[in-house]
Every structure is written in C-alpha cells, then in structure tokens.
C-alpha cells in the first residue's frame, strides 16, 4: 500500500458526517483530506479501505450524509470515530441490503440447497 494513504481518509462535502478510508485504518489518529473542517480525527474501530467512518456523533434516525446528501439512515446511535456500514446504517429504499452479511456483503436470505 502506498504510504501516502497510511492512516488517511477523504471527506467529500463539508457537511458530510462520514469520511472514507483511503487505506486499511488502525484505531488511532487519522488525517482527513478533501472538504473537512477537521484535519485529524481519532477513530476507535479498525476500518477497511473504502469504508466509512463517522466524523461526529450520528444519532439514531439521523441521515448518514455523504456527497452532501442522505445515503441512508442510522439505525442506532453512532459515535464519532466508529465504522459506519450495514450494522448501523440502512437504505431508505433497498430492503434486501439490510440482510446482507456485514463482512462479505453476501446474501443471507437465500438458501443454497
């Protein structure tokens, strides 16, 4: 992995409440590139490349904002520095995605037998 992405993330719009991991991140201090008011944030979860981190507290029922628009809804409180994914955020539209496996994204609602 390219060193410049070490412990680095990218926030698209200023109002977004998530940033995107530019490499696999370890808990600790990370940089935020792009349009963030903060330069650094402390994360408490390990977060894989391409996944999202809450850059502030997101309360249950609050929209998760990326690109400046709601991309889903928080299904319980998400503290700043936490990984945001299928376990705490769901689509407003696609019911099936809430049933997918958290790690692999594989469907769990269909039997292979």
């Amino acid at each position, binding site marked *: 992995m390219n060193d410049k992405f070490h412990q680095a993330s990218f926030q698209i719009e200023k109002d977004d409440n998530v940033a*995107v991991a530019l490499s696999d991140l370890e808990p600790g201090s990370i940089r935020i590139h792009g349009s963030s008011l903060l330069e650094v944030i402390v994360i408490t979860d390990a977060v894989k490349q*391409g996944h999202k981190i809450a850059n502030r507290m997101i309360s249950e029922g609050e929209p998760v904002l990326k690109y400046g628009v709601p991309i889903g809804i928080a299904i319980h409180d998400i503290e700043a520095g936490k990984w945001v994914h299928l376990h705490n955020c769901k689509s407003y539209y696609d019911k099936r995605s809430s049933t997918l496996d958290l790690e692999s994204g594989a469907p769990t609602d269909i039997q292979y037998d």
Partner: protein
Amino acid sequence: MSGNAELTWKGFYRNNGTKGIRNKILVMYTVECASFVAKEIGAAYRNSGMDVDVVGFGGCTDNEYALRMMIAMIRHPNVGAVMTVGLGCEYLQGKSLVEIAENEGKPAAWMLIQDYGGTLKTIEEGKRVVQQLHERLAKETVLVEMGLSDLVIGAECGGSDYTSGLAGNVVVGRLFDRLVEAGGTAIFEEIVEAIGLKDILLGRGINESVQKELGAAYDKMLEYCKSVRQYSVSPGNFAGGLTTIEEKSMGAFAKSGTKPIEGVLKVSQPPLHPGLWLLDSTPDPHFMSFGYTNPNDNEGLMDLVCSNSHLLFLVTGRGTVVGSAVSPVIKITGNENTYRRMSDDLDFCSGAALTGEKSMDSLAEELLELVISTCRGEQTKAELLNHKEYFIPYKYQSAGTNCEM
C-alpha cells in the same frame, strides 16, 4: 474556456451532415448464424491499418429495439461504410439496412451466406468487398475542421469501487462541465443508479417539461427495481465499503457534472441539441417484460454509441478491460493501485486528487488533452488491443415522441 477555441482537429465529413472522429467500415451480421463469417472477415483486417469493426444481432426473430440500434450505428458519424452479412432466412433484412446506409450517403454492400455458397466463399467475397469499401472511403472521404462543439461524449461506469465516487466519476463530471461550456454534448446513463436522488435529479432539469421527463424515467426505473427486487448493487460493492444503493447512486451521478439536463434520451435517439443529456436504458413495461436494464457494461456503452457518442468514458475502480465497437473508449480510474496494476488497459488516472497532490481542475485539463489527442486519431488502450466489444439485446422500449425512425 476561451483557451479551448483553437482545440480543433480534422474530422471525417459524412454526407448526412455529421462529422466523425474515426473512418470505420462496419461489418454487421443480422443473425447469430452469420456471426462467425462476419467475425472472420473483420479479423482479416486486424492491425492492417484499415479500421474495420464487427457488430451484430444474435436473434433470428427481429426486435424493434435491436433494429433501431443497428440503424443508429449505420448512421453513426464514426462509420464511413457498411457491409451486412446474413445467413439468408432470418427476419432482419441486411438489404434494407444497406438501403438506409446508402440514403445516408455511405458506401454499403450486403451479402447472404446461403447465396454465396457457404462459409469460405462468403469470407473470401466479404474480404474483397471490405477492400473495395476501404478504397472508396480512402478516395471519397472529405476531411473537415472539427472542435469540441461538434463532439458528443458518453460516460458510464464498470467495476466501481470507493474511488469511483471520490475521483473517477468526479473528473468526468468536471470534464463534462467544460465540454458543455464549449458548446459540446455530454450523455450519461445508468438511471438505475439514481435511486434516492429523485429530488436532486429533478432539480437539474432545465425546465418544467424536462423535469417531468426525468421524473417519469425515475419512476419507471424504481418500479422496475422494485418488481424484480434487485437494485444495481452487488455483494462486492458492499464488501468494498458501500452501504446502500443511495450511496452508490450518488457516486455514479457525480459523472454528470453540474450542468442542467436538457432532456431524457431513449436508446438509439440522438441528442436534439448540445448540452447534457440523460440516457434512459430501462425497458418500458411490456406484456413480455422484455429485457434486463443493465445486463453488462458493453450494453451500456452500445446505448451511448447509439445516441451518436463519438467517444466514450468508462470509469472503473476495480479495473476493467473492455472497449467498444464504433467509438473509442477512454478508461479512467481514481484508484492508483488499479491503474499501475492494469496499465496496459487503463488510459487515465485521477487518483492524485485524493491526497490533494493535484486539483480536480488540473486533472480535468489533462483528461481534456487526452480527449483531443484521441479525436486527432491517437489510439486508446482498448483500440491498441483490438478490444471492440458490442452487445445488442432483445429489449422493449417505445420509440418515444421524437425518435427519428
């Protein structure tokens, strides 16, 4: 944009009034049974310096949607001459296609394998005819000044990852803004990846009637996705960090840039005037529920070709290798690792924006230079590798109110 006024090149003038950036001979088969012979004819001219592409429709029973795509490619500005190859008993009539080409002022010829006496004789005759068409094109094609205001570029994504929405599609959006400012035409598609964006989409419509068109295209798409219980998002997308279809949609929508949308095109309908257009490739409701909306990336590229795109952008994150018949494909990624790993296939990387090493505007400027050199005849990676994929499905869509048929 004033600096781009002198960004011109020599295009190929067509008698139907259009200008192309390539001068191709298009070999078209009219049924799967004729595909082998057509492909053998095309393969004979690989790396020959002659620009011969092969496309075709596999069905024996014809289909209006597929026929419209075939006709759109015959009329396409990058196509100089046409030869159809049929077996002889299929519905789709090569002879009628050739009449359309001739009415457009393009040299054309048709042949049926049953008449010519089988595989070998048809291949031999086909090669001779292609050679003749080439000689006519070389002699008769008129070169003409061409610039950004004549250019139509289509964009779509394939093999997206987290960088697509952060950098890959963003640089395309920035370039589309510049193209439209220069009086050119930009087309984006993948309305299936607009879930959750209805208000944003409608807000981009240039007037009330276009907003209505956009709303209707959106509602049809949402109804389609609900009824097949499948959104355009896959396990790999989730594993890669995307959590919802809305998130993926917004990343894809970024490639449309910021200009107003002039209208919604149906497949095989050319834009009515310059500006930014949305291409609707979702099948219309029909008693046979014809067709999947996005069976693969090449179908999407074909849709953009059939709306007269001279040039295509394919944005990838994980990496893709395909090209397209008829129009050159510039493959763009925002992922520097993918770009290094697949450097034989990918044309452009906008990943430097992620760490602020380069601004998105300066990357868009670099992409514009690549667009111009491609218009001047420089081959894309896909062209160099002879990647000339195509895909014409059975599908149902009404022709719309302003489709030229």
